[in-house]
């Protein structure tokens, strides 16, 4: 039973990693008043760019850097539509998701051809900490990026709540008119928030392609971005609660993988749907009192 629980905890942290990156990224966008439905495509684009650059240069770190840059670009594209032009955020975000997905698939075929075998790389290795301990060893044997994701949570909390920049981000998300009147540049702040958010989302995607899997598959993100959109509501837009939401989803996902392995007489798809159903239930129960940033979905125009 010990190995069952140890394995469960280790897998929970691994599954939660891309969700933490994605949700923290979305947190920046939404705190500044922009619902970024481009997240699914941005994570996909990050996973592709990270893999393609890592595969062609042989450097995983360059891949990671390229992924972050691709995410920043995706955030700037979202900013062009949702902030500068003030287009409906639902439609522009989905449009960006669809465009980045298509662009990644197109580029992948262009670079790697139509081969039926997916190209793969030697991805990041798990760190070995406490490797002599049968319990702590497996739990702490995670990718460096998992530790970075967890460390980012208090860091983002500090930026949002304790710095001037964070205050400004929250201000444009709550009341852009007043922020503008106070002499701050609303467009620039929102663009900055989307750029940071995009970089984080793409990092989440790249974790999957250049750490966990070492390859890029067409189903690599498969709805994780949408889960982040749900987690941010569940977390009530607070960084520390992002951790609990991600661990809950990660835990249910890890549990379903293990339940599949127990050979119960049930179709494995039932387990696959569990994390989504639990998320909807959690959203219904926990998200009801959630307080979205007041100016979310409202484009700002100076009249």
């Amino acid at each position: 039973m010990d190995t069952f629980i140890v394995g469960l905890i280790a897998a929970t942290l691994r599954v939660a990693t891309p969700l933490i990156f994605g949700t923290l990224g979305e947190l920046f966008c939404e705190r500044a008043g922009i619902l970024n439905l481009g997240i699914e495509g941005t994570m996909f684009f990050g996973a592709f760019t990270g893999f393609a650059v890592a595969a062609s240069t042989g450097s995983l770190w360059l891949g990671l850097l390229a992924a972050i840059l691709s995410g920043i670009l995706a955030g700037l594209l979202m900013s062009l539509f949702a902030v500068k032009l003030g287009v409906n955020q639902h439609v522009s975000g989905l449009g960006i998701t669809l465009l980045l997905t298509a662009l990644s698939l197109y580029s992948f075929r262009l670079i790697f051809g139509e081969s039926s075998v997916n190209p793969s790389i030697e991805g990041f290795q798990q760190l070995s900490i406490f490797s002599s301990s049968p319990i702590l060893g497996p739990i702490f044997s995670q990718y460096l990026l998992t530790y970075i994701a967890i460390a980012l949570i208090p860091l983002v909390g500090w930026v949002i709540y304790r710095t001037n920049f964070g205050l400004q981000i929250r201000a444009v998300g709550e009341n852009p008119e007043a922020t503008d009147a106070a002499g701050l540049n609303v467009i620039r702040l929102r663009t900055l928030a989307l750029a940071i958010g995009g970089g984080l989302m793409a990092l989440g995607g790249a974790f999957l392609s250049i750490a966990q899997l070492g390859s890029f598959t067409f189903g690599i993100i498969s709805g994780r971005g949408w889960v982040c959109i749900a987690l941010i509501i569940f977390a009530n837009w607070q960084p520390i609660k992002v951790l609990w939401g991600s661990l809950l989803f990660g835990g249910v996902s890890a549990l379903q993988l293990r339940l599949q392995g127990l050979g119960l007489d049930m179709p494995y798809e039932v387990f696959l749907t569990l994390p989504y159903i639990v998320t909807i239930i959690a959203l219904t129960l926990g998200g009801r009192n959630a307080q979205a940033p007041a100016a979310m979905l409202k484009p700002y125009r100076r009249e």
Partner: protein
Amino acid sequence: MLKQFKIERVPAPRWSVIVIPIVAVLVTFLVSSILVILAGANPFAAFFNFIVTPLSSQVSALEVLVKATPLILTGIAVTFAFTAGYFNIGAEGQLYAGAVLATWVGFTFTSLPSIIIIPLMIAAGILGGVLWSLIPAILKIRLKVDEVVTTLLMNSVMLYIVSWLLNGPWRNPLSGWPQSPEISAAAHFATLFPKSRLHIGFLIAIAVVAIAYIVIKRTPLGLKMRAAGASLTGARFAGIDTTRTMLTAALVSGGIAGLAGAVEIGGIHFHLIDAISNGLGYTGIIVATLGSLNPIGAGVAAMFIGLISTGSQTVSRVLGVPVYLGDVVQNTLLLVTLAMFLLQNYRIKRVRWILLS
């Protein structure tokens, strides 16, 4: 005195309805040319194959309408919901829900004649879509749970359900492939022309466009929907039962998306596979937006997307460019058009500013 430019908000002139789509298409082609050149192909040849080749023979021109049929329906589904301010992103899942029920009817009641089983399949498809949209709609209306998130998550759940059906109870016992049993021959939709796959589903889609247009533009329900979509609080002040209006819009939207699933099963596939949609529900959002939430506009947009998606297969075959170019083009077109819609309301005007200093 100093000459300056000022951006002014003015109503769109009438000619913009024609000019904007044309300019949007040109800009889109310009942008996506870069990708064609990267693939080592000639952009002019690519766009000739995109736009002209599919229309050059009767068979391929009809194929454009075949591709447009489900898009018209998902486009109308999204138009209906968005008009009422209900952001249904779940047309993809609702389409599959409709396809599942329609397939079940199609291979279960094998002794029924066409005249009964086809309407039954269509009804089953609509029912599937309505049922699948019921959960997010009720969560939204009763508990104020954001419908964007729930409909997106429900799409993922539905894909797993389809995968379970195809790998489990419905797996084809003969071939072992993950595909459902075939629907009965009587359940196949009649085709409209010899040597073409175009089927009566296209006529159904056209009828849905007409009905949606009348409902949205000419009935009290449509007026309430538009009012709720424009301003929920405003509509409430005007005494409109917004809860009921939104629920109606959400369920009708789901039903039309489900109908799209039934039409694809009865007209094209004749069995359920997990690739029947591949994003038709999401493309419906593009279609609805390109049609600026006007049902007739959505019909026209769906045909254009049908043209691009037929063309992308030709481009890929003739020029060796990855087939995903079609998706890139249609999504770029969406974003460019979004920008153009906004710009049409603005005019750059030269004004004189008097410098006081």
